[in-house]
């Protein structure tokens, strides 16, 4: 199983990497929400091109980015198949009695382009900041501490649990277990999962005791020393203007 290392290339240097994490979180979120609700195919396409541009500016390796972004297709490809057949509208072509509608095709592609734009932006946002910096930015933005802590711990232990699971999985494979969708396979798999839950539950008490002995009291203490420079202000203003203008163009 692969590690979900989103910030593997956070140490590169680019204007997006240097962007203040707090401003980056805010402006990118605004852009994501703005691009995800554009109604016009052409404007959605411009939004997508803009997010590609940001990705290019950030100098993240293309293979790394493509591997993540192509997930959108797996999720939305069924729409592209179903919607042209089911949405009523002008007939584009007729394949042996089944009519394919232009409206359906346009709507499905609009959805996919909006999703691609949003995912590209979200990916660039997280991939250009170290994960602990993202969490610090969330603290600085006054997101409830309980949620940020849960995000941070969960992220941290995903790596440990993946290792734990891989070990158990390998030993099962050695004993000849193959996961198949029948009653036997699934109930054995249920036992593996139960053991994984018990192992991680036992780990929680050890982790908690270790944390308490280091002074953990449920209240996070983060040293935050972010500083906004002129460049950050300019970049944020541009981003906000683009996010707003995408929706204003539609009215005129």
């Amino acid at each position, binding site marked *: 199983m692969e590690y979900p290392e989103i910030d593997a290339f956070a140490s590169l240097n680019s204007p997006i990497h240097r962007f203040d994490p707090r401003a980056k979180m805010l402006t990118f979120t605004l852009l994501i929400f703005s691009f995800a609700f554009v109604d016009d195919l052409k404007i959605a396409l411009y939004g997508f091109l803009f997010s590609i541009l940001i990705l290019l500016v950030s100098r993240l390796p293309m293979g790394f980015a493509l591997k993540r972004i192509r997930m959108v297709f797996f*999720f939305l490809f069924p729409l592209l198949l179903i919607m042209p057949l089911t949405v009523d509208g002008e007939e584009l072509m007729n394949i042996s009695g089944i009519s394919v509608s232009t409206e359906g095709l346009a709507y499905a592609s609009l959805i996919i382009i909006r999703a691609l734009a*949003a995912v590209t932006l979200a990916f660039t946002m997280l991939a250009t900041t170290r994960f602990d910096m993202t969490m610090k930015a969330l603290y600085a933005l006054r997101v409830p501490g*309980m949620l940020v802590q*849960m995000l941070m711990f969960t992220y941290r232990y995903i790596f440990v649990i993946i290792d734990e699971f891989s070990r158990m999985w390998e030993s099962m494979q050695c004993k000849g277990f193959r996961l198949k*969708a029948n009653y036997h396979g699934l109930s054995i798999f249920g036992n593996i*999962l139960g053991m*994984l839950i018990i192992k991680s*539950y036992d780990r929680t008490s050890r982790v*908690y005791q270790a944390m308490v002995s280091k002074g953990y009291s449920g209240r996070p203490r983060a040293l935050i020393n972010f500083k906004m420079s002129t460049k950050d202000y300019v970049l944020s203003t541009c981003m906000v203007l683009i996010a707003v203008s995408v929706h204003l163009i539609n009215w005129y």
Partner: protein
Amino acid sequence: MHISDGVLSFSVVAAGWAITLVLSALILWRCKYKYDMAEQIPKISIITGTFFVASLIHISIGPTSVHLLLNGLMGVVLGVFAFPAMLVGLTLQAFLFQHGGITTIGANNVIIGIPALISYWTFRFGYRKGINVAFMGALCGALGILLSGIFLAFILISTGEEFREVAYAALIAHLPVMVIEGIITGSVVSFLLKVRPELLPVDTEV
């Protein structure tokens, strides 16, 4: 099984976020007085991480493969904490793996989290009545998926009539997953009851 960005209309997305945030805040606020949150936060987080890893496993059925949702099991193991834990899990899933969307985390959390709560209450009710635990586990696992499918179809249709057929297709796609998760949850729950019964929070009042 998750809704991606760009599918839902703005009002549905806003409603999803509102329900998710209010319900999570309510649960965390209530539990603050009942539990020592400093102790609960690492516990919930690590168990959430376990479910996150479990949801990465793909099981192949014929030509396609499904990945596990395990919301029924999450409800049974975490109790009411399953809902805020789901918010954390979905956020990480959306950002780390691009499963589901960022704007739709709220709606997805309603689709997956509320069935988890219902599964928990069903399980607790059945457990107190003394019904066979493996059966209750299987029922809750299947119930979690069935309700998720229904919620998903309902949300898709309420965003636009164009999605009617897509919603039905999604609902049908949930049926085999329902059987798989039923069997797995039943087996996990009976295993936990044998090995570590204190893990099932059936005796707590929330």
